[in-house]
């Protein structure tokens, strides 16, 4: 008997076009389903329909039927489904309720009426499962994004749900932490729907794949069959470039091609020498780091969560002063912060991008077109999906064509085809005589050079 069933579900958020169209799906106990599709395609909405949040929390127009463990979501509220269903949302910062980690994990158990004597042992087991026991007494505001994501998964695992809904749960994790996270999911034994843009590991884990586009389920098939379909219909999803294999542009002194160098002998656009920084004196995040970026190259800054990638990128952009070391900069520099979707300041996507080019709407429109958001020019940025907001941020910082473009986790929430397009565009941008510095967890992101910042554990949020 199916654990959950969607029957011809069509749904639209209030005042918006259909986000899901005639979606039907059956989930069997113990299945791990990879939910793939472009950003804004309806993946998050599908997950919300399974948790009852659509339509109960969001309102809108709903047709069809969703039944989870015998409960019809038209009559059962999300709180009634909690425990049977657990959800880990995209942004961990927006789902943390309590101030201490252990209390945060216990929150759901308390709501469900778990016998008090069972609560702390279940909290311990859940934190152990995601290797986060050491965070037990830590304040949630002091955790890094990656640590918070593990705490959010622990909060879901503690409920011992039959159906676990994961909405891009590894977007802020480095590859090692992401693998650990997904291992914990695999061991759970529950039915899992995993919506992911880092598809490599998700496809390894999945027994079945569902592909959504424009609100419609285009594919619902066992893994092998789905891989064949993806290879022929959506090759970017099976391309090694978007997995975990490192990729490179043509070397800087190579003969032409994407990323060919146009100025290897020029002075660097930015040169950091012996740069150190500590948020707290006893815990240096950066200690004597040397990095430089020249015209014509894409440099990737990589390292585990908390290794100081963001700090270094902000220092390179001139947004943070180092406590030791020297910096030389040349030309105009712009910086895309982590989670740019949170930091939107204008009423329309067009004016958001135009802000960086002195209000020049034609340049702004060009930048929007380049990131595939031409259609959203008149939209309020806050009405866009998280992946679309990320692309809007990219358009906003690149519209002025700076000499040096610094991007902090620019592929977060971006689907594989867009990621490949971004990488190709950055290669062309560098080849046109600019420099690019990318801080990323994405091991597959192509670069001319990679700079590794190694650090095992950091106790402060960056």
């Amino acid at each position, binding site marked *: 008997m199916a654990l959950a069933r969607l029957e011809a579900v069509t749904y639209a958020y209030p005042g918006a076009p259909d986000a899901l169209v005639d979606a039907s799906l059956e989930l069997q106990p113990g299945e791990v389903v990879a939910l793939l599709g472009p950003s804004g395609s309806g993946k998050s909405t599908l997950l919300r329909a399974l*948790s009852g949040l659509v339509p109960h*929390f969001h309102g809108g127009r709903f047709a069809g039927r969703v039944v989870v463990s015998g409960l019809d979501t038209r009559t059962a509220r*999300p709180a009634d489904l909690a425990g049977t269903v657990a959800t880990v949302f995209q942004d961990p910062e927006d789902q943390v*309720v309590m101030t201490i980690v252990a209390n945060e994990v216990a929150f759901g158990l*308390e709501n469900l009426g778990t016998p008090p004597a069972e609560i702390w042992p279940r909290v311990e087991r859940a934190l152990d499962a995601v290797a986060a026991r050491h965070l037990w007494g830590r304040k949630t505001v002091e955790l890094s994004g990656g640590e918070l994501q593990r705490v959010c998964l622990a909060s879901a695992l503690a409920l011992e749900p039959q159906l676990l809904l994961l909405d891009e749960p590894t977007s802020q994790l480095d590859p090692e932490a992401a693998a650990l996270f997904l291992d914990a999911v695999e061991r759970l034994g529950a039915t899992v729907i995993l919506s992911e843009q880092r598809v490599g590991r998700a496809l390894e884990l999945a027994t079945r794949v569902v592909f959504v586009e424009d609100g419609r389920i285009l594919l619902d098939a066992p893994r092998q069959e789905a891989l064949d379909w993806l290879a022929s219909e959506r090759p970017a999803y099976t391309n090694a470039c978007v997995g975990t294999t490192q990729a490179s542009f043509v070397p800087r002194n190579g003969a032409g091609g994407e990323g060919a160098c146009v100025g290897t002998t020029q002075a660097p656009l930015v040169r950091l020498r012996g740069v150190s920084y500590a948020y707290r004196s006893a815990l240096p995040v950066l200690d004597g780091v040397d990095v430089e970026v020249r015209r014509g190259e894409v440099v990737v800054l990589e390292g585990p969560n908390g290794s100081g990638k963001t700090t270094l990128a902000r220092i390179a952009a001139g*947004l943070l002063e180092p406590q030791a070391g020297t910096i030389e900069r040349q030309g105009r520099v712009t910086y895309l912060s982590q989670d*740019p979707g949170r930091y939107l*300041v204008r009423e329309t996507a067009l004016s958001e991008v135009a802000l960086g080019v002195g209000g020049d709407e034609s340049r702004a429109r060009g930048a929007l077109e380049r990131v595939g958001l031409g259609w959203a020019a008149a939209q309020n940025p806050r009405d866009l999906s998280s992946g679309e907001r990320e692309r809007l941020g990219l358009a906003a*910082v690149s519209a002025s064509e700076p000499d040096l473009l610094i991007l902090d986790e620019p592929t977060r929430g971006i689907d594989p085809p867009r990621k490949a397009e971004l990488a190709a565009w950055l290669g062309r941008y560098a080849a046109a005589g600019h420099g690019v510095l990318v801080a990323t967890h994405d091991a597959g992101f192509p670069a001319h050079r990679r700079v590794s910042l190694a650090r095992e554990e950091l106790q402060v949020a960056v």
Partner: protein
Amino acid sequence: MSPGPAAALLAAAGAAALLTERLAVVAAIALVLLALCLRAPAERRRVYLFGALSTGLGVLVLSPFLWSSPDGTVLWEGPALPVLGPLDVTTTELYGAALNALRLTALALAFSAYALLLDHDRLVSAAGWARRSALAVALATRLVPSLERDAAGLAEAVRGRGVQLQGARGYATLLSPLVAGSLERASSLAEAMEARGFGRTGSTRAPRPGWSRSDRLALPLAAALVLGVGLWL
């Protein structure tokens, strides 16, 4: 000390500051609360202390001009303005301004100490039948550092595009997105809470340590502070 009794003591200190008419007593209460706040990490306490002290200073500077008293010695005489009348500062006005400024500062410092030093989770847990209200207060308390982080993030995002924010007017343009972002965050949090069963009947509490002797002493002490200051000081 457990957060419940500690919150009661802070509330008592705030109430005492409002009840007394003696400047020295209010000043002493404000100083004790300031000392408490200084125990919080510097980067966290900064915004709270700035808010508390600047509000007090604002009252101290403005109220002699907005409130007029015929008593006391005139220290400064200025022009007569429409609506406000003659501008002057007397010793009585200055005393009243200092008293009100210190009262407000003490109240703000009591809230700051509550926000910075207490374990809000345990307060929520101890709230019993008023758990929803206690949780709402705890979440509202978190709004201050969240807004501070968001404001810094917004300013950095704009500067990162090569746009310089200039003057109060430049920063004022961030106010609307700050409020929008805050509402969006609140909506997301409410959604996450509902998905985790918040509001369901039959909820339980994880076992917590009981009250210590000092916790039990704190409640009568809080009551005594309010009564003592209210009746004799």
